[in-house]
């Protein structure tokens, strides 16, 4: 329990609204100082989970612990959780400085301590020169910086962020994403970050928890989730994937639409799904000895900058393949194309 001094622990947490189960038997431990993202499609229960940690929702069963201490019956304002909202939720009648100082004042900190802390926080989020500005005079990105400083002001045990970047435009979103990560790393605060954007989650988290229908689908490091999705849903939700439904014959042989591929797996024979990432598909040269060949023709392509994503029709199914744009340039719709992949890149579910 000492390792969880300021960690968060959920054990068998469920929440039912009317006749829909928003969160179903979720157990999850977030270590002190860890940055955990919760991702999932809208309505998967990620926000409800966050609200149970903050105390705005009460679990119907199970327990939420912060720093090893059960939060049963502990009101929101005594939990010391910092929350950053999607819509910033800054107090419009207060300046940036007053917003940041609000929590410290409410907790009756000594005046000099409030002043130095609030100033330092504004400095930290890069808003030191806008201390006297009112929220409506600030851009969305600036407001969210203030909101972050305000949440950190009370020296929370846990920082909860609920889709903090989804109201911002792409450019600001990218800079602020890494700012949040930097501030989190510097302050070493336990952070739970809710987002529907899997790319965002992969790029800043120590671990990612994928939710679906109120339950945890998979929890792991970004690399684990990307390389070894535990389910078809995970394979499809995290990143872009090709999903091939076939049969595992055993002995490293996977058949799909009459083709046989050599794969590496420890699973038992039976109907199986293989996933292979688009960037793991490469054009097969004439001298290619790979047994895993997909023969088809180009049905479309999308220029993505450094990469060009090619849609390949194989056996009536469409597969995606990422080529370096230099290589993809010469391809046009209708061209025949042979792709192959390494057996270790075919991930069997």
């Amino acid at each position, binding site marked *: 329990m000492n390792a969880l001094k300021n960690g968060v622990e959920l054990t068998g947490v469920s929440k039912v609204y009317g006749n829909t189960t928003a969160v179903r038997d979720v157990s999850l431990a977030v270590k002190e100082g860890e940055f955990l993202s919760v991702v999932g499609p809208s309505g998967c229960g990620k926000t409800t989970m966050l609200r149970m940690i903050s105390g705005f929702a009460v679990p119907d069963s199970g327990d939420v612990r912060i720093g090893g201490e059960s939060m049963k019956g502990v009101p929101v304002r005594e939990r*010391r959780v910092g929350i950053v909202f999607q819509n910033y939720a800054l107090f419009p009648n207060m300046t940036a400085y007053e917003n940041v100082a609000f929590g410290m004042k*409410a907790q009756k900190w000594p005046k000099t301590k409030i002043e130095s802390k609030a100033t330092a926080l504004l400095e930290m989020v890069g808003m030191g020169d806008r201390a006297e500005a009112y929220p409506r005079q600030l851009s969305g990105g600036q407001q969210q910086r203030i909101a972050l400083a*305000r949440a950190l002001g009370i020296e929370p045990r846990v920082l909860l962020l609920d889709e903090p970047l989804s109201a911002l435009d792409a450019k600001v979103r990218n800079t602020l994403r890494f700012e949040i990560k930097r501030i989190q790393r510097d302050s070493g605060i336990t952070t739970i970050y809710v987002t529907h954007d899997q790319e965002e989650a992969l790029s800043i988290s120590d671990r990612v928890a994928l939710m679906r229908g109120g339950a945890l689908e998979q929890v792991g490091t970004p690399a684990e989730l990307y390389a070894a999705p535990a389910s078809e849903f995970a394979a499809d939700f995290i990143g872009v994937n090709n999903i091939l439904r076939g049969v595992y014959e055993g002995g490293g042989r996977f058949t799909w639409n009459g083709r046989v591929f050599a794969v590496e797996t420890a699973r038992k024979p039976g109907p199986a799904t293989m996933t292979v990432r688009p960037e793991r598909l490469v054009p097969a040269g004439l001298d290619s000895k790979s047994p895993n060949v997909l023969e088809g023709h180009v049905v479309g392509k999308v220029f993505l900058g450094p990469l060009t994503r090619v849609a390949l029709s194989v056996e009536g199914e469409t597969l995606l393949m990422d080529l370096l744009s230099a290589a993809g340039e010469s391809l046009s719709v209708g061209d025949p194309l042979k792709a192959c992949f390494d057996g270790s890149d075919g991930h069997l579910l």
Partner: protein
Amino acid sequence: MNKARLYLLLLPVTAVLAAFLAWPLLLVLWESFFVAGNLSHANYSSLFVKNLYRESFFTSLALSFSTAFLGTLIGLPVSYAIHKSGRHKSFLMALTSVPLTFSGLVVGFAFIVLLGTSGFFTLLLKRFVDINPLEFSAFLFTWRGLVVAYLYFLVPRMILTMTVAWSNADWSLIEAATSLGAGRGIVFFRVLLPMLGPAILSGSSLLFAVSMGAFGTAFALTGTAVKILPMVIYTQVSDMSSDIAQADALAIILTVTTTLVIMLYERTFREKRTSA
């Protein structure tokens, strides 16, 4: 569309306002400065000399401030309850609007029928408790009784204003404040009130203005017995001893006072906004 065209579109309403608001008002203002054909401020100074006018002025103010204050006090929680009533909301909103469709006279008579000397509730109460109907209903025919009757059609106005405000309210502000450790008091005074303040102010100033000028209900209930400004003006115009110029002056005072109070409200509201 250019500006000239825009002004052209405003022409009809400007004409109507000029003919039916500005011109009569100017006329009233002009006439109010004449006594027996001579220019004079007597009609205004009489406010400080004549007990009736001074009394009616202050009774009107007391009545209007009371209704604005009580209407706000009652309307706030009720509007919150309606806002939170879920699927019954539209029905409750419709029900709330019903009193607004009655003319003031109807409201006045309704109160006589219900709470008058031989009113329904008066007689009902008399059955169970030993009360004197005359004493009991006497209250209704004073300015305090008017407050009660006015609230009947003013509270709905407050509710309608506030229901909009509640549904535009940003509840995440309350949550943010709570998570930062703020207790109920701080949340109420530092977050909720500043958030709803403008709506509360505009709602209560509306109540004030409406009760300053309301006539029908008071007329039905008390005739000309309770001296409020609209009633005194009415007496000056209709009685045998009619004094149009005096009525004009009182009308101007009524208009100016109401406008002033509303402007004051507005200013507090705007200052809150800019400092906010």
